[in-house]
């Protein structure tokens, strides 16, 4: 029993086992959903009774699902791209102190994070109905920009203040105008942080229900809304199949992003 052992404060067997159980608990619904999507019966047992790919076939040929996937993707990509452009520009102005009141401004841009999503949803419902824009796709995109841009701003602000400003100054003195300095020096350096922010933003948009459900017209049902309303009407394995597809897609994206930028350091 030396000093090294005593001051190590490593987690003991009980704590480690408990922690691993909790981590397993975290994966539980995911595992269950995947299993259910292959099950022949519409309820799940262990071991599952029968394997089938029927549900996948059903989902991939069902226009309702395909449409929902398409709409969700277009919405998420548009909102993320728009958030990136608007968010990075605003973050730059704040991080480089080009305008007074940086702290207050940053808080304002990230304010949507502090307001419950359902409240944002109903507020937008009322407002856009009033100006006659409810049900438009552009309205949806703007709404999604509002809820995703805080993540971009947070990442961008962190990345921008983390880099040595002298590099931008060096580029300027060497003959680059402000935009060129940004493009050639700043942007490459903040890219990993931006990727992390964009990823969050994409995910938030893809899974959003509280804001989207108040604004989406009948022809704009997104995937999460479809699943949400389907479940209200009764559980079918079709829902499980769609969910499994989403899980696989998320896994792929996560692994790719980690491989590409090692972004787990920025989460």
């Amino acid at each position, binding site marked *: 029993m030396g*000093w090294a052992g*005593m*001051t190590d*404060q490593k*987690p003991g067997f009980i704590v480690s086992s408990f*922690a691993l159980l*909790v*981590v397993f608990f*975290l*994966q539980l*619904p*995911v595992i*269950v*959903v995947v299993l259910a999507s292959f099950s022949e019966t519409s*309820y*799940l*047992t262990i071991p599952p009774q029968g394997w089938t790919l029927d549900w996948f076939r059903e989902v991939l040929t069902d226009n309702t699902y395909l449409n929902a996937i398409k709409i969700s993707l277009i919405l998420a990509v548009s909102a993320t791209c728009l958030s990136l452009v608007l968010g990075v*520009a*605003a973050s730059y*102005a*704040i991080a*480089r102190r*080009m*305008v007074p009141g940086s702290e207050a*401004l940053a808080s304002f*841009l990230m304010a949507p994070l*502090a307001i*419950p*999503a*359902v*409240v*944002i949803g*109903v*507020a*937008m419902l*009322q*407002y*856009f109905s009033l100006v006659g824009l409810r049900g438009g796709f552009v309205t949806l995109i*703007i*709404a999604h*920009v*509002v809820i995703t*841009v805080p993540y971009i701003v947070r990442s961008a602000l962190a990345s921008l203040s983390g880099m040595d400003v002298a590099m931008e100054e060096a580029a300027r003195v060497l003959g680059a105008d402000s935009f060129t300095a940004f493009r050639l020096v700043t942007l490459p350096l903040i890219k990993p942080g931006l990727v992390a922010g964009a990823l969050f933003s994409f*995910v938030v948009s893809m*899974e959003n*229900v*509280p804001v989207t459900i*108040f604004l989406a017209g009948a022809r704009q049902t997104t995937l*999460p809304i479809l*699943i*949400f309303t389907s*479940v*209200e009407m009764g*559980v079918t394995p079709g829902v499980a199949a769609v*969910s499994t597809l*989403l*899980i696989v897609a*998320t896994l792929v*994206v996560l692994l790719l992003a980690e491989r590409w930028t090692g972004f*787990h350091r920025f989460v």
Partner: protein
Amino acid sequence: MVNLRSGLLLLAPLALVLVASFAIPLIMLVPTSFREYSPGHGIITDGWTIRNYLNILTDEYYREVVVRTAWLGISVTGLCLLLGYPVAYLIVRGNPRWRLPLVMLVIFPLMLNLVVRSFGWIVLLSNRGLINNLLIDIGLIERPLKLIFNLTGMLIGLTHIYLPFMVLMLVASLQNVPRDVEAAAATLGSSRFHIFRAITLPLTAPGIISGSILVFVLTISALVTPRMLGGPVYQVMATLIYDEYMQLLDWPSGAALSFSLAFATVLIIWLSSRMTKRWAGLA
């Protein structure tokens, strides 16, 4: 000054979008909440009333919802702390080789669609769901336990959804605990448990607090999970707002509820940031 002009140009587009699509809509909730609603006739546009707000406090049904929401918030936060701390501890202080896989396993559910996760719990907790089937099969119980469409279901589901947030905040906080302080305590004769209780735990207090605030605020604002796992009977504030707007069409009441909920969350966040600022000053 050139800087100011270009700065405003960079800031303006986003600021405009947020003001027009976020700030103004929110502000407009307020007058609506003071209007009266008449079923079948719509919103009465002359005359103001504070009845909507009073209802929240006086009406038994509303009060029950508010209390239930707050209770859920506290319980979920407590559970997340209890379950999350060991996980964070394992990640930070355990075998470094496990660190990346563990972090990925904690983050992965976060990336998953919220609806999908809640759906997973339905599959698990239903009367003919996995858990009940398992328990019946091995003979532990005879009739299915009611694990869903009640508070238990909501509790389990919400804890699961927000646990990763708590873990991540605790990890950040644990990482900042200086190891020398613990080593110093050990040389002064503290047992391992005592070191944890007297040193590690208090030093992670900021992380515990910020994680708890985050989980609490998220829980009381939650819509999807309580709706899917609580069913139409067990309402929380968010689901009630949803119903008032979409089904009952009682926008004024919904607005009053919304504004109250938003006010509560902003107040909590603001108070806690004031507290942490003061704490940081003392530290």
